[in-house]
């Protein structure tokens, strides 16, 4: 899921394979973590000199990856695999970052509270946290919405059932239970037995996989045969198509196409 384009990394924060460096020590001992925060540079009055130590730029692709997961989830008719690693990793990073902001705010470095500059930096860090929180929330909501829409189908099909996180599975089962109970109590129990089924043929709603989606080609694919017609498309990077979801479903799973 993580496309590792090997961004210029410092040995800190980034660790594309093993997840995030945060795992053990955080958020209890923020100061001992290898993740240094901007305030550290301001601790010592030393001007330019020690900035250089912090200069190794790092870049973390997780937000970008989760953003695309969010877009795909919102656009695709079916439920997609859950981006477990990304969500968990980002949540941990948010916690660590928040703990550090808090620690610095309280700490004041013995000089009587943070300077206005440090306070402003904290605002910026906080702003990023809010953005990521929004992203995660909206991603989860998009999934919940699909789960509510096709609960039975998702619970029944192995493929989709496996795509649920444990929490989502618990939600889906509980939701279905409530729904069934409600239907039974309100009218099903009064009907003849042969009309009481809730999962008969054509009674379970499933996503329309032939529904139209917009997508952008991420890498040259070349000739591509559409199932629904004899035409062969030549798909090149950055082409934008409007077509049936089923046609590009595989390409999207392989990361060659993104929904927009």
């Amino acid at each position, binding site marked *: 899921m993580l496309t590792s384009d090997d*961004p210029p990394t410092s040995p800190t924060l980034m660790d594309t394979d093993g997840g995030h460096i945060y795992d053990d020590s955080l958020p209890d001992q923020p100061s001992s973590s290898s*993740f*240094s*925060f*901007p305030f550290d*540079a301001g601790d010592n009055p030393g001007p330019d000199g020690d*900035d250089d130590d*912090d*200069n190794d730029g*790092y*870049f973390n692709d*997780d*937000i*970008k990856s989760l953003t695309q997961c969010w*877009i795909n989830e*919102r656009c695709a008719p079916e439920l997609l695999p859950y981006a477990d690693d990304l969500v968990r990793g980002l949540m941990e990073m*948010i916690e660590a970052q928040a703990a550090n902001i808090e620690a610095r705010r309280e700490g004041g470095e013995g000089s009587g509270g943070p300077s206005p*500059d440090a306070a*402003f*930096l904290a*605002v*910026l*860090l906080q*702003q*990023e*946290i809010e*953005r*990521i929180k*929004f992203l995660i929330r909206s991603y989860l909501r*998009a*999934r919940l*919405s699909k*789960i*509510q829409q096709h609960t039975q189908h998702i619970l029944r099909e192995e493929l989709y059932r496996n795509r649920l996180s444990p929490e989502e599975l618990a939600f889906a089962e509980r939701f279905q239970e409530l729904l069934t109970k409600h239907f039974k109590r309100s009218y099903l129990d009064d009907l003849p037995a042969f009309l009481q089924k809730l999962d008969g043929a054509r009674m379970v709603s*499933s*996503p*329309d*996989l*032939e*529904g*139209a989606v*917009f997508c952008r080609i991420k890498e040259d694919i070349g000739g591509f045969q*559409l*199932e*629904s*017609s004899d*035409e062969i*498309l030549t798909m090149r990077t*950055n*082409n*934008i*198509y*409007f*077509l*049936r979801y*089923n*046609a590009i*479903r*595989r390409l999207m799973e392989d990361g060659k196409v993104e929904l*927009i």
Partner: protein
Amino acid sequence: MALPKNLRHGFAPAEIEFLAENEPITVIPSQRMETLQLINGSYGPFRPPLKNLVPLWLARTLKRKHKCNIVPPEWMDVDYLKAKLEQEMSQIEFSAMPFRYMEIAHILLGCASDDIPQAETARTLLKDLREARQSKVRSGLKDLDPHYLQIDNLGVMEINEIRPFFSRAFNELRVLTPAGGAMGGDSQTTMSGAQSSMG
């Protein structure tokens, strides 16, 4: 429901703008600032007059606090936009604009119009460009078939605008077309069909 109805088939303009705020943009800081170590990556140190490349949301916050000036992207240049507009009027295809040009322009004109040379002219040109493209989109609707439509160079905001109508029309056409309808009728069967036939 978990997602309001209007968000279930597409994005709200504010969400599209949220996405655009991740795009990188060049700023010239107006005061010194330490390296900013965000979760997304590190930015800075900020040393005027050296330029920094930062996400748009960060640039906007800095700009609002008068801590930087924003270097507008080349495509917001008035002469460039004039040429684009002319191109847009004279050719059938959409002229190549950045994928998120509308949102970026909207944000920049909102928060940093003093950094954009001839901002008002640029605004007008962008509006004309948008209208020219919109009318092209509308006339392109007649080419819609239940198979596919190629719409290179269309921006994401423009796509999001046409999404509800185009999707609906596409799906109606699909049902009406016998060839596609034969296999598209029951989503249960096509689901497994697609998996085996696409290699």
